[in-house]
């Protein structure tokens, strides 16, 4: 029932759309581009739904556990007999879930963009890039080979770059796109080296064999644990470096700095790439290699957990202070991904221990829905107000009822209010943390409260607070809330953000493939809900109506507030490192050395030759007798050398 060639269509349809629009879109298809993209994605998402259905309910399960199925495997590049880059399709619960999320959110964004991006000059290009991204992301999640993932990893990176820089005549967009690409590239360097270490430790690049060899007692595993470098074993190095790659893409501290800036891209793009799909690639990567982390190298998994939880808290604090609504959402994304990360980090492998894993995936799933919804809602707001800043908004609930409603649903979901979807996934994560690592649990709990606070700060600031005054001409206000192409995705996502939590997720996605029935711990569910409600209440008092409470609070926590407002100066640190250290201490000297020393040596040798030539010119004096004298001296010299000295 599961046919490789059909599944291959899922990524290939967007690719086809990309090629079509990329090559001819600008000239011939500029009006039809949106529909071409959307339809291809519709087909793609229908196929992926059917595939997922097939997999989960018909053919995926053997002996009560979901199996990994590898399809269409063929070699792309071969290195040594064992090590080769193979391309193919990997079907397992995680990848099934991912293709559904990706195609679905992407479809929503495609539809939404029909309205949002209407009239843009490079409309076709936009859709081409969207399709390219969707293709790459699908390729990424379906990868059977760690190198295949790396390939698509880079491709999503570049599509993200292209889309962030879509408004390329804005210097800030250009800077943001560059930053996103370079920071993730830096992380990818770690990924690449990690791949090299794992590949030549396990002598394979294939996920299946890799996991098999590195989780059972095999000579490869012993070899990798046995060899160490700077105190860590090769396996730890490999996994940590791979995780570094994942951390870069998933905007984990300290590689997160690109994500807030990436909001320079069109808002639907942020919804798709920087909220729902690409940024969770890091989580996906760790999940993909999870058995190795969990079984062979718990140390690395701890790093994952602590980085995750720290990022989660860190981002939540910053989110409380930001005024650009997209940036708030960006930090909230970072915070939620931190949740997923540490959920993986606290998880064990198999059965009951794998709760964290399931929870993480569950949260990934629900987060995709409500975060995409939040971004699309924000997009609608921005579309309406032509501004990203909170102070330009307020009281919008009257003007944009649909947006208001769906946004509220999403906020409730992310705040973890039952029975919205976020509640279920968060509850699972917290209980997994509670069981394994109490400090993490405490931090996570606090973060949950913060999340509710800043989300409702956002919500109240946009839709309540002061009355809305259009800063633009009256002609702008007339276009109403949004076209139906924008509202439709909001409504669909709203429904899902509400209901996605009821999916018995553990039955489908678990660390070892076997079903993990959800257990509901009431005792564990209460504290986060209470904290969440407290956060909402706090936000309500501070932001429901215009008052000076926020300013007072800011003054109270002056230093913390300033630090958080300036994102804890991480950007400045990076700037210092790149500008001052890399440019001034490495780049400039290299260029100088090249110009003056290396090149100078070449010129010097030329000049020396010329100078020597000038030095001996007096030899040719024009005086015949001196010539004769030299002649005589030459004879004497040869006599001296070859008769007197040399025997």
């Amino acid at each position, binding site marked *: 029932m599961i046919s490789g060639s059909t599944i291959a269509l899922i990524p290939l349809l967007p690719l086809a759309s990309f090629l079509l629009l990329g090559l001819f879109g600008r000239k011939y298809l500029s009006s039809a581009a949106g529909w071409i993209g959307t339809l291809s994605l519709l087909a793609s998402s229908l196929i992926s739904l059917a595939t997922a259905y097939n997999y989960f309910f018909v053919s995926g399960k053997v002996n009560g556990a979901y199996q990994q199925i590898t399809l269409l495997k063929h070699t792309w590049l071969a290195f040594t007999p064992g090590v080769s880059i193979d391309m193919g399709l990997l079907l397992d619960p995680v990848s099934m879930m991912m293709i559904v999320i990706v195609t679905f959110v992407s479809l929503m964004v495609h539809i939404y963009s029909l309205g949002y991006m209407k009239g843009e000059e490079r409309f076709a290009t936009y859709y081409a890039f969207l399709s390219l991204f969707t293709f790459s992301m699908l390729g990424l999640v379906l990868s059977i080979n760690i190198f295949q993932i790396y390939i698509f990893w880079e491709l999503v990176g570049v599509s993200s770059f292209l889309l962030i820089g879509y408004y390329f005549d804005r210097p800030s967009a250009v800077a943001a796109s560059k930053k996103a690409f370079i920071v993730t590239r830096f992380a990818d360097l770690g990924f690449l080296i990690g791949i090299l270490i794992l590949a030549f430790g396990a002598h394979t690049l294939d996920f299946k064999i890799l996991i098999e060899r590195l989780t059972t007692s095999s000579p490869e595993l012993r070899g990798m644990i046995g060899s160490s470098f700077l105190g860590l074993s090769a396996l730890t190095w490999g996994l940590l470096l791979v995780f570094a790659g994942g951390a870069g893409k998933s905007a984990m501290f300290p590689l997160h700095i690109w994500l807030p800036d990436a909001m320079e891209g069109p808002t639907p793009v942020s919804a798709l790439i920087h909220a729902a799909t690409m940024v969770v690639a890091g989580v996906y990567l760790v999940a993909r290699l999870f058995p190795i982390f969990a079984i062979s190298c718990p140390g690395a998994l701890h790093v994952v957990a602590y980085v995750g939880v720290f990022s989660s808290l860190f981002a939540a604090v910053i989110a409380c202070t930001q005024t650009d609504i997209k940036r708030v959402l960006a930090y909230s994304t970072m915070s939620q991904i931190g949740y997923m990360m540490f959920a993986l980090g606290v998880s064990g492998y198999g059965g009951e221990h794998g709760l964290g894993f399931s929870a993480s995936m569950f949260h990934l799933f629900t987060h995709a829905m409500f975060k995409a919804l939040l971004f699309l809602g924000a997009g609608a707001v921005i579309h309406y107000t032509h501004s990203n800043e909170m102070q330009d908004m307020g009281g919008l609930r009257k003007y944009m009822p649909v947006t208001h409603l769906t946004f509220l649903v999403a906020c409730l979901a992310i705040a973890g209010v039952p029975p919205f979807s976020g509640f279920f996934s968060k509850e699972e994560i917290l209980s997994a943390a509670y069981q394994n690592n109490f400090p993490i649990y405490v931090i996570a709990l606090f973060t949950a409260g913060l999340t509710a606070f800043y989300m409702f700060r956002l919500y109240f600031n946009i839709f309540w607070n002061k009355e809305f005054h259009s800063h633009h001409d009256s002609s702008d206000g007339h276009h109403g809330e949004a076209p139906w192409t924008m509202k439709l995705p909001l409504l669909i996502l709203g429904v899902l953000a509400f209901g996605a939590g009821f999916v018995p997720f553990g039955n489908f996605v678990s660390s070892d493939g076997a079903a993990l029935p959800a257990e509901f711990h009431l005792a564990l569910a209460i504290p986060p809900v209470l904290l969440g409600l407290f956060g909402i209440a706090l936000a309500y008092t501070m932001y429901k109506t215009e008052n000076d409470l926020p300013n007072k609070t800011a003054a109270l926590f002056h230093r913390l507030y300033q630090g958080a407002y300036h994102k804890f100066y991480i950007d400045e640190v990076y700037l210092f490192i790149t500008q001052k250290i890399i440019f001034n201490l490495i780049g400039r000297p290299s260029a100088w050395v090249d110009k003056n020393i290396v090149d100078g040596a070449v010129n010097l040798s030329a000049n020396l030759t*010329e100078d020597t030539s000038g030095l*001996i010119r007096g030899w*040719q004096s024009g005086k*015949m007798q001196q010539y004769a004298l030299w*002649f005589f001296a*030459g*004879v004497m010299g*040869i006599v001296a050398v070859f008769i007197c000295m040399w025997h």
Partner: protein
Amino acid sequence: MDLSLLLAMKFELMITLIIFILLFMKIDGRANNQTVIRISYLLLFLNLGFGFAGNVSGEIFNGMFRSTPLLAFQKNILNLATLIIALSSYEWLRNHKHLPEFFILLLSSLLGMFFMMSSGNLLMFYLGLELSTIPLAALCNFDLHKKISSEAAMKMILSSAFSSAILLFGISLIYGATGSFDFKVITSVLTGTTLQKLAFILIFSGFAFKLSVVPFHLWTADVYEGSPIAVTAFLSVVSKASMSFIFITVLYTTFISMATTWYYVLATTAVITMIVGNLFALRQTNLKRFLAFSSIAQVGYLLIGISGASQIGIASVVYFILIYVFSNLAAFGVISVISSLTGKETISDYKGLYASNPALALIMALSLFSLAGIPPTAGFFGKLFLLTAGASILNWPLIIIASLNLIVSLYYYLNIVRAMFIDETDEPMVKLNFSTNEAVAFFMCVAGVLSIGFLKGVFEFIFGLSSVL
């Protein structure tokens, strides 16, 4: 002595005949310049053609005069070179007052060289040497009213007299040591005592003087610059070629018992010669003077080939000289045409030459590439074969220095190419017309430069000839 052995001297006899014909024409005095020049060209063509027919090998006059196929080939090269020089200096000769004398002196010098090359005896050698030198000194002064021409002639005659005195002292010591002038006898007696070494070094310096090996080279540039271009060309090509041919014979047969000594003398002087020649060539502005130093540098390579002391060594030297004839004479031909039509001789005068005179610029460029050893010109093969022959001794420092010198030499050859092709100038040269005679000379040179490397039989043929010196 039967007649067939006289045929062994056919080159010399033929030239003597031509000299006499020209002499009679001079005495007769009725023929005008045009007639004389035509007849001379005709005779030189005949001379060249005759050289290829019916060669006889053997020794006459008790071994004083030898003739071998290799010698015949070498003489053919020199005949060809003389013809090309005569053709390409048409413009300069056309109105010269002493036209017949020019040819008479030139051919006398050539005759001397032939005798020198064929000599089997030091006396014969010395006679040939002087017969080639003395007319050349007179030729240097052929532009009687030019100051530098007479200065060049003076430097030439005085320094060559000095050098022959030293050479003769060496010969006298050899005589003292062996009691004979005959090469074969000397070979059998020489053992390499100190006296013999001293004698060898003195004789070597005589050769080195003619070949312009550093430090015996100082006369070269001045004489080349001052002499008429045809004479410079003759000096730099024919005179040097003949000298290196006999040098090989003397080294490889007569002084073979001192092979180690002369190898190191050769290697040392070769290195110094290349370096000094290149360093001086770098800074020249006058083209004739420039070519003088470049030819000094070329001699350095020649010495490396000679030092190879093998059949390959001989073949590569002869091959190199064959190519050198074409490439150097092409350059001199261009200089001659330009100099006699405009009087311009410095490198900066050549700026923008390609724009006004593409043909001349291209010929010049080809010849320079050939001199620099850049493919696809024949000079590439010539130079590399010399190095290969020299490398057979496995003296790597020598080969490395020689190879690195190629860089310097490329630099100064490129300077001229740059002037002709790249530099722009406010006063470009006018379009120059040259006669058919020069065109024929150019054609021969260009054909030679472009084809010799690809005619795979040539080197093989020379190699075959080189089995007997």
